[in-house]
């Protein structure tokens, strides 16, 4: 999409979905959508051949991608219509273009992306001048241009890495591979055109404790790099080039928030226990080991979910057993004796790892991901299990397996764990023989079978982000249907009740690690349904602890019963908002 030339001079407000709370007053850093930023700085002589190879590899990747697209198009629209892709394919085989690009790299020290971009721009400009009819061909060329540049740059993370000073990142969308190399200290917030409440950027923002607003539609077409920006993560408002009065208002709000934070720190060391004496485990979700200090800072008891995914996302090499062990120990040493639950690799879906080749899929969320990859690539799984087991010798570690959809997978995983244990025994390496093994309940088929699954494990962890998406058939990244994505949907509440009940029947504890666990509107329901453990982003810990400490378990059970009787999610929301507002006047909802 070409950017509008319309420059915003006066204050302009955009409204989106509030996704991570907080206020940011900063400047804009734009991460372009598909039309990626080109780095025009000259390259070093020593880099020339690497760039040439990068370009050639990108052409090959684009070709194989087009081949897949063509055969799909042929199935759908017939051989003849799929011919359009022949033209694209030929563009990639065009020796004139290829030679010109390589010439640009070798003779003018351009980066592969810059060289190719400039050649394509030259052609596009010529076409732009021709008459109406031929201008319509331009989109074909732009498509090919983007495809190749995307492959040259691999992902946008290197570009993001170059951000100077602190800023709010504006993008059409952000994927895990974009953000994996991000210098998180510099990021003041996120605003994106796409995305719903549980898209990757939101989870990122919450774990980083910065505000985020998503679903802003065309914001990136109107903002410019360096524009002043205010992100209001409570109201979902984004203000571009705000005037002095607005800035002053938000500065004051920021100060008030800091005060609230300090007050919530006061309950940090208090136990998480209801008024009538029921103790609840309140732990934190963790994305990166270097965020581990936030766990104690916010008063969480241990880590209820450590997403090990970044180990597989950050580079094209698979993490070694030793490397993983060191990362796990970083967390364990800081949280001991509190438990650390390590979830095995959960890539695929919207997380495209650099280290594992996942072929393009039509439905990645229903595709080759998480435990499905682990059970096929057993060597990767084995290395991770060994690393987790070795870490268990130094603290209270538990294993959590994601995306279990059937009993067979569970049996296979248990065999794999047994195998890893035997291998360690043979190598005379210590591990916790009684390590707890649990499964994520996030696929409806597993949720309906928890009476059979629970007796085979030590705990269940409800992953609401995926469970809600699969239960309600709502793509959680699609902002057009975001209004349907409701974790307070009565259907979701009913299945949660069943999961907890089945777990307790089998004598195992049940936790929750999805975003729902950190939603103040859901806390009393979950408490009333007898959930044993809440694992939330560190910044949500004080708020949830405050609610639990001020509530009565028996009363919550009644509230939960009532909430489960509603027909609609909106009715549950209204009901809970009323109760929470009455009880907690200071809570920002």
């Amino acid at each position: 999409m070409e950017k509008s030339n319309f420059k915003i001079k006066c204050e302009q407000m955009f409204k989106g979905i509030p996704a991570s709370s907080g206020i940011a007053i900063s400047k804009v850093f734009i991460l372009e959508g598909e039309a990626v930023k080109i780095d025009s700085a000259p390259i070093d002589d020593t880099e020339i051949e690497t760039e040439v190879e990068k370009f050639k590899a990108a052409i090959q990747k684009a070709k194989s991608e087009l081949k897949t697209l063509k055969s799909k198009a042929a199935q759908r629209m017939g051989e003849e219509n799929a011919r359009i892709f022949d033209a694209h394919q030929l563009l990639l085989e065009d020796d004139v273009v290829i030679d010109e690009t390589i010439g640009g790299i070798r003779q003018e020290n351009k980066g592969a992306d810059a060289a190719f971009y400039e050649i394509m721009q030259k052609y596009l400009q010529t076409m732009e001048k021709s008459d109406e009819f031929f201008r319509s061909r331009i989109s074909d060329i732009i498509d090919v241009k983007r495809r190749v540049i995307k492959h040259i740059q691999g992902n946008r993370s290197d570009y993001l890495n170059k951000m100077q000073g602190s800023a709010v990142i504006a993008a059409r969308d952000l994927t895990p591979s974009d953000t994996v190399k991000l210098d998180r200290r510099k990021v003041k917030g996120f605003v994106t055109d796409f995305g719903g409440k549980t898209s990757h950027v939101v989870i990122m923002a919450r774990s980083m404790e910065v505000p985020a607003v998503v679903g802003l539609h065309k914001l990136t077409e109107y903002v410019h790099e360096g524009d002043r920006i205010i992100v209001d993560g409570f109201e979902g408002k984004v203000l571009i080039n705000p005037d002095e009065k607005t800035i002053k208002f938000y500065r004051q709000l920021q100060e008030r928030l800091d005060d609230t934070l300090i007050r919530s720190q006061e309950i940090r060391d208090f136990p998480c226990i209801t008024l009538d004496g029921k103790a609840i485990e309140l732990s934190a979700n963790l994305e990166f080991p270097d965020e581990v200090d936030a766990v104690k800072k916010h008063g969480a008891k241990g880590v209820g979910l450590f997403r090990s995914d970044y180990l597989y996302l950050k580079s094209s090499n698979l993490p070694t057993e030793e490397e993983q062990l060191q990362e796990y120990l970083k967390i364990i040493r800081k949280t001991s004796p509190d438990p650390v639950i390590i979830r095995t690799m959960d890539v695929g879906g919207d997380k495209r790892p650099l280290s594992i080749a996942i072929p393009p899929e039509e439905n990645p969320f229903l595709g080759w991901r998480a435990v499905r990859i682990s059970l096929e690539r057993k060597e990767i799984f084995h290395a991770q299990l060994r690393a987790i087991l070795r870490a268990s010798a130094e603290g209270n570690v538990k294993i959590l397996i994601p995306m279990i959809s059937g009993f067979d997978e569970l049996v296979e995983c248990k065999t794999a764990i047994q195998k890893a244990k035997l291998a360690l025994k043979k190598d005379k390496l210590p591990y916790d023989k009684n390590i707890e093994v649990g499964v994520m309940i996030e696929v409806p088929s597993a949720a309906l079978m928890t009476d059979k699954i629970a007796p085979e494990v030590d705990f269940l962890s409800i992953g609401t982000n995926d469970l809600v998406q699969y239960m309600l058939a709502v793509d959680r990244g699609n902002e057009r249907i975001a209004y349907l994505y409701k974790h307070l949907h009565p259907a979701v509440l009913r299945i949660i009740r069943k999961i907890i009940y089945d777990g307790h029947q089998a004598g195992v504890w049940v936790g929750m690690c999805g975003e729902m666990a950190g939603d103040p509107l859901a806390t009393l329901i979950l408490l009333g349904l007898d959930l044993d453990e809440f694992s939330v982003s560190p910044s949500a810990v004080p708020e949830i602890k405050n609610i639990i400490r001020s509530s009565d378990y028996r009363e919550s059970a009644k509230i939960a019963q009532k909430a489960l009787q509603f027909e609609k999610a909106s009715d549950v929301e209204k009901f809970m908002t009323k109760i929470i507002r009455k009880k907690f006047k200071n809570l920002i909802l």
Partner: protein
Amino acid sequence: MVQKEVEIKNKLGLHARPAALLVQTASKFKSDVYLGKNDHEVNGKSIMGVMMLAAEMGSMLVITTKGADEEDAMNALFELFENKFNED
């Protein structure tokens, strides 16, 4: 070297699909292939070049083939233009 003038007879001109067909055909031969239009000459094996010609219906092109199989190449290409690229 063989040279021949052709007229573009298909309604949509040398748009992406016929351009692709032309480049695919030209690439089958060892000879060099050039297409000229109003003093502007492009490599007939380059899709980018062919599309740059922006040749619409009614425009005249000069095909040049040069090499071992220049006659065969010319015949094959000429036929494409005559058959309107199997369009219309």
